[in-house]
């Protein structure tokens, strides 16, 4: 519940700087909801796959050196 406030602020912040909203997912799933877990996992994977590889915030060691 405290985490919810943190996530809300963080998600807004990351969207504000231009990270695609679909890269970051949050969900509440109880330990009895295996089906919801399956459904959400599939959905997350589909959405991220649709976006293609991440471009932002990646630390590329070779580029730095």
């Amino acid at each position, binding site marked *: *519940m*405290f985490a*919810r*406030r*943190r*996530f*809300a*602020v*963080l*998600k*807004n*912040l*990351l*969207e*504000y*700087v*231009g*990270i*695609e909203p679909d890269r970051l*997912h*949050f*969900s*509440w799933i109880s330990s009895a909801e295996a089906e919801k877990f399956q459904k*959400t996992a599939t*959905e997350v994977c589909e959405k991220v796959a649709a976006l293609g590889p991440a471009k*932002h*915030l*990646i*630390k*590329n060691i070779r*580029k*730095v050196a």
Partner: protein
Amino acid sequence: MDNKAIAEKIREVAARLLSQGQVDCVIGYRQGSVPMRERPFFAYTPEEAAQLTWTSFCCNNLANYLIRRQFGEAGKVAVVAQGCVSRSIVGLIKENQITREQVFVIGVPSPGMVDRRKVQATVGADKLITAVNEEGEELVVSGPGFEERIPRHTVLRDNCYTCQQRNPVIVDELIGEEGPPTHGGDIDAVAAPWEKLDPEARWAAFVDNYQACIRCYACRDACPLCYCHVCFVDETMPQWCGKTQDEADVLTYHLLRAFHCAGRCTDCGACESACPVGIKVRRLTSKIEKDIRAMYGYTPGMDLESTPPMSVYRPDDPQDFIK
């Protein structure tokens, strides 16, 4: 009351507090070694109090110097505080860094502080400014072969234009008269200028804004909210944020720094004034504070009673983003 009269009054009050032994020290500003760079000053004796000043360039947040302070005999220090600084002091009291009894607030309704970069840009980047005098609402800027009069309100710092609380929220002794609480600017309208861009342009604006960063941490050190013993940028096991000037490291640092200020930032602008390369450091913090006002109806540091927003919750907090 103009700034010169306020400065006079600050010196008088500081000398009185010190000679009566009410406080160990008066934290205020004194003239810097170059124009437009007033610096924090710690007056321990009534004689030293004569060096205190008050101008349009008092950009540091003095609440910063209350953190982990060694208190002397009187167990109390006095701080010259405008609206934002007093709000930071309230924040520190709430976060149990100091107690209300340890601090004597010399409250000064803020006239809005001036951005030295804007002054320099107004007279021309190639001109050497050797003196700035204040005459009422005008700054008289002079240097070799030129003198220019600039109205103060045209060169205020960004955060001062949209100030929401000029008058100190806690006061032990007030200097000057309380004015209207705001400077008239609408903070919600300018807090998040990138919001209207599309995601790619937002990212480009974000990278562009921070790319000059040299990782000196002046913004962190100027900030009265950043008082962790070990900052996350100094942690190495695990290392959350690399120490290079690589884009990913710089942006991670600024994102996390801003996030740590969530629900605490009083928009004093000390970070922006401290930045040696002139980055608009407030871009992220002002966006977060706007969100917090919108989602939780909270403005930091306005009173001693309310609970900080990130340490409470309500059952009906927004959660559309959670599946």
